[in-house]
């Protein structure tokens, strides 16, 4: 067992690390907190700069996982304890009950039978789903989940009764499992910074102030609006959309670092708006546009659209005005003038908070001042727990972590 590599996190970097290690001939245990793999990438509408859907790449990876007997997958699971050292770790995994077993065929009869609805975590709380649900339409594993809130209710019994395959297991319980591994890759990912903490943006004062990750869900066909970009207050198409960069980033009071992707994400989302709503105007408020190397071409392309304007200003205040209008105040640092601008939809480009800043690895690790994992022997950070970055960087980082892990376990 000393040759096993344990990967924590089934997002882009974790999946890459697991696949690279398994395809190089090592046994892999992959532990994922959600009921599905793919992490935050699965929630995106399109990648920048090519504007292609992330799912085509994810599907290939899922197929590789499915066909590889070396990968053992735990979903709905978290690592709660790590003992030992490089070469021989004992890892405690806590798995929450799914209440649905592998006989599930995704027929959807349990969801039809259940009446309770819950906020949909996959849509960042924008919509609701039945309490018996498929996490999203292309989820891997392709299997329903029953929310613990209905298990002991009438709805739970209805779900069980409705299932023709005997796949609903209401007495399913949380399990504690121990796995042995020679090296660990920690790819626990990131969380969008809580926009309500930037109090002068009054995030909770209007449903038309959304975050960039919510914008991804609005734009995508599987999202709460079926892919229509609308104002959540009244369902109408927005006419003047504002993007606010560095909402809680590059700020000593919030996330002091630059997340590196939000500029490109907003440029990309501006194209979502322009493509769907040819009449809409888009304004991007920024401190600096950070579109590095090949991404600069994308910036140049977006800038050429005359309905997308750029204002060099960190917005200092958002206040709801009359008739649902949102009033933004800022100082244009190019002209020096202080302005008030009216928009009917505002997208806050919130940054990436490493999950290792929110909850630490249960082992002796070193973090930098922002909570990013530093290099260690035997336990390797990968992806956005190591530094903020875009998807292809996470893939490279996952591969790199797999190589480091292999060097620990090889020859044992």
């Amino acid at each position, binding site marked *: 067992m000393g040759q096993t590599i344990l990967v924590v996190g089934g997002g882009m970097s974790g999946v890459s690390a697991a696949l690279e290690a398994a395809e190089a001939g090592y046994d892999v245990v992959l532990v994922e907190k959600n009921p599905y793999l793919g992490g935050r990438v699965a929630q995106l509408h399109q990648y920048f700069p090519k504007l292609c859907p992330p799912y085509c790449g994810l599907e290939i990876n899922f197929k590789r996982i499915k066909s590889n007997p070396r990968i053992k997958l735990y979903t709905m699971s978290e690592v709660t304890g790590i003992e030992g050292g490089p070469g021989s770790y004992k890892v405690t995994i806590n798995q929450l009950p799914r209440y649905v077993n592998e006989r599930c065929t995704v027929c959807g009869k349990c969801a039809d039978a259940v009446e309770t609805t819950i906020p949909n975590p996959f849509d960042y709380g924008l919509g609701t789903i039945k309490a018996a649900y498929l996490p999203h339409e292309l989820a891997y594993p392709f299997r329903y989940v029953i929310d613990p809130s209905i298990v002991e209710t009438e709805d739970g019994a209805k779900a069980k009764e409705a299932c023709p395959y005997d796949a609903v297991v209401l007495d399913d319980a949380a399990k504690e499992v121990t796995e042995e591994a020679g090296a660990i890759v920690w790819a626990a990912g990131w969380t969008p910074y809580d926009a309500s903490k930037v109090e002068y943006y009054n995030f909770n004062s209007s449903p038309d102030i959304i975050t960039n990750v919510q914008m991804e869900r609005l734009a995508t066909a599987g999202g709460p609006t079926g892919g229509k970009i609308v104002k959540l207050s009244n369902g109408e198409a927005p006419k003047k959309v504002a993007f606010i960069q560095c909402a809680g980033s590059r700020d000593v009071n919030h996330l002091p670092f630059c997340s590196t992707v939000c500029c490109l994400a907003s440029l990309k989302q501006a194209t979502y708006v322009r493509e769907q709503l040819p009449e809409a105007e888009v304004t991007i408020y920024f*401190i600096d546009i950070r579109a590095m190397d090949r991404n600069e071409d994308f910036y140049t392309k977006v800038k050429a659209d005359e309905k997308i304007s750029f204002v060099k200003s*960190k917005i200092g205040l958002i206040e709801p005005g009359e008739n649902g209008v949102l009033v933004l105040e800022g100082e244009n*640092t190019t002209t020096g003038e202080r302005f008030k601008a009216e928009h009917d939809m505002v997208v806050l480009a919130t940054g990436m908070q490493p999950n290792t800043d929110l909850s630490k690895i249960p082992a002796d690790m070193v973090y930098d001042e922002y909570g990013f994992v530093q290099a260690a022997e035997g336990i390797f950070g990968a992806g956005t727990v190591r530094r903020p970055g875009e998807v292809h960087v996470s893939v490279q980082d996952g591969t790199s972590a797999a190589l480091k892990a292999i060097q620990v376990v090889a020859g044992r």
Partner: protein
Amino acid sequence: MATKAYDKSFREEVYQNVDSGEDVKLCMQCGVCGITCPLRGEMTHGPRQLWALIRAGKRDEVMNSPDIMLCTSCYSCKVRCPRGVKVIDVMHGLAHYALEQGIVPRKETAKFGKVFWNSIYKTGRVDETEVPMRYTMMAGPVHGIFAMLEMMDIGRALLSHKRMKFKLGPGLPPSKKIKGIRGLKKMLDKAAAMSPGKEG
């Protein structure tokens, strides 16, 4: 292309002589301070532009900007500054430095400061009747009387709620001194001797 050389001497002067002057280096020119300021409608430049002017070596514009004396120390900008610049300290530092150089960026504030200080120095407290009286009288008795008449309603309300004592004029009757005024004066003298520019 012709490039214009900035005069570096003024910014070095600020970094060395103004309280927290080196914080100006931290500024990334985002503009949040200027828009957070409750007095943004009154300010000509606001902190961000002042910092840019300092870096650009615009000595006269900075030292004569009324903004550096308009700051009321509410600390909103300091709290929100993404770079943690000690905005208030620099604003007051600049005002202090300007006065030392014999420049008065905003006469009203300088006068009020003097009256306010005298009240504390002489009696150990800010006398709510004495300070506005002396301040308004500084521009001459006629101006003073008209200014006070304008404030009559507020004065009456303060009097009726015992927030202010009645006086016939400045020093009539004289303000009460605190106990131990001598000790306070000693402390204030010592602090004045330690202020930047006086020592070291």
